[in-house]
């Protein structure tokens, strides 16, 4: 088997592979930077919680559309994710519960309700699709939705970069200079939900954060500055997507999990060899004079 057969032919031969690759590119460009900021805001697990919150909306979209219409499920997921993010914010402001605690409650409720709704009408296969995604079934409409979400995310990140960064490391300062931290936070959460909806199409509700959080973790092991981290997270997310598609194609594995496993392999390798990884602790280098 030539390198062409191995690495390129699957995408030349099959439209669904091409669409899957473009979907991975969208996720890498949009979701990975968002994951980077989530991680910087110490909200890694909140992203996970939110991804489950998308489920009941997607399930209702599925019920209404009758089949696995990714557009209907996307819109439903968007509404559900935003509602949970909003409700969790309101609950943490109105009661003694911290935002993470109210998020945990809401995502458990959402996950349970979502699975119930899917099981009302659908088969176990449908449930599997909802939970683990159908990256090879992405149609043109779904791809357009993902492309729009990625474009909106990149523009929003470019516009909001400065207040977002300041809000990450010194929220008190942003408040003091009248920088509207809560508005920035709300817009950021909106971007998180949008990207989860995009990611949900490809990787399902259980692994939607995979291409957000794993690349973010990898980037932090390699880089010291935020721009470098953002670049590395995008690159590793796309490499994971490409490698996952190729491997799953040749070995006839499920694509979504293979993509995440590829990212996980990069993560484990980085844990060991990256400058901030485990190995650096055991390589003794003589200290400097000054």
């Amino acid at each position, binding site marked *: 088997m030539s390198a062409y057969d191995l690495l390129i032919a699957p995408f030349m031969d099959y439209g669904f592979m091409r669409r899957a690759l473009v979907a991975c590119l969208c996720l890498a460009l949009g979701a990975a930077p968002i994951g980077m900021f989530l991680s910087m805001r110490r909200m890694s697990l909140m992203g996970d919680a939110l991804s489950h919150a998308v489920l009941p909306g997607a399930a209702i979209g599925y019920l209404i559309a009758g089949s696995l219409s990714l557009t209907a499920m996307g819109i439903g997921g968007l509404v559900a994710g935003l509602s949970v993010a909003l409700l969790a914010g309101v609950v943490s402001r109105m009661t003694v519960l911290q935002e993470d605690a109210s998020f945990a409650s809401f995502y458990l409720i959402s996950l349970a309700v979502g699975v119930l709704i899917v099981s009302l009408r659908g088969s176990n296969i449908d449930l599997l699709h909802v939970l683990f995604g159908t990256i090879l079934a992405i149609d043109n409409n779904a791809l357009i939705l993902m492309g729009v979400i990625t474009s909106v995310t990149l523009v929003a990140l470019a516009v909001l970069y400065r207040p977002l960064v300041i809000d990450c490391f*010194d929220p008190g*300062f942003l*408040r003091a200079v009248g920088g509207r931290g809560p508005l920035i936070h709300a817009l950021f959460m909106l971007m998180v939900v949008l990207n989860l909806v995009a990611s949900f199409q490809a990787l399902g509700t259980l692994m939607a954060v995979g291409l957000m959080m794993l690349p973010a973790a990898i980037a932090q092991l390699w880089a*010291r*500055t935020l721009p470098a981290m953002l670049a590395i997270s995008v690159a590793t997310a796309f490499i994971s997507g490409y490698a996952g598609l190729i491997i799953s194609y040749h070995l006839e594995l499920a694509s979504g999990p293979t993509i995440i496993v590829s990212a996980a392999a990069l993560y484990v390798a980085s844990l060991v060899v990256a400058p901030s990884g485990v190995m650096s602790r055991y390589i003794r280098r003589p200290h400097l004079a000054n």
Partner: protein
Amino acid sequence: MTNATFAAPAIALENVTVTYNRHPAVHHVSGALTRGSLTAIAGPNGAGKSTLLRAIMGELKPAEGQIDRAIPSRDYGYLPQAADINRRFPVSVIDTVVTGAWKRAGAFGGIGKAERQKASEALVAVGLEGFEARPIGSLSAGQFQRTLFARLLLQDASVIILDEPFTAIDSRTTQDLIDIVLRWHGEGRTVVAVLHDHEQVRAHFPQTLLIAREMIGWGPTEEVMTAQNLRRAQALAERWDDNAPVCEVSA
């Protein structure tokens, strides 16, 4: 600067009471920070010093009374106590200082060479020349406090509010930073700082507000920081009485 403008208040407090769960942390405090004044706020722990500053910043709403700001609070430079800063965030010293240009650049405006130049000069002024590219996580406590002062320099604020700026800072750094505070005073800015070191207060601060929830004294430092006043301040009961009656002092 003429006497008339000196007497004009930058911030006036009128019978201000700030509460947590209805218990007063600042109780019936009245007075004014005059324009261009250099004021120390002294008092024991739990006396409501930080609470008062946060009320002045507008972060806390007084339960009673009024704070009149002749200078709007967006023109205040505020250094909170143990600032809520994520020191592990991958941002450099110079980028941290440049955020002080917010008033001019806002969220979206460009930050040009001029601002970068000013930021570098501010770093020189606080004795951190050559630290531009260092990540903030690698700084010592003193170096980080110097960085925050450099940012205040860049902010170019008319009112500067410092909450225990010299806590856990060595004497040389403290002296450098006090020099900056005196420079601000010389430039006619209104400066107010919470301080615990009474010697610092007496040596450098013409005005003092001594507070122990209630106001003990507010005026020229030598008149306020008397042995008798300090004893009164120390006598502050820190514990709340859970069954405290409603305060009857009229507004």
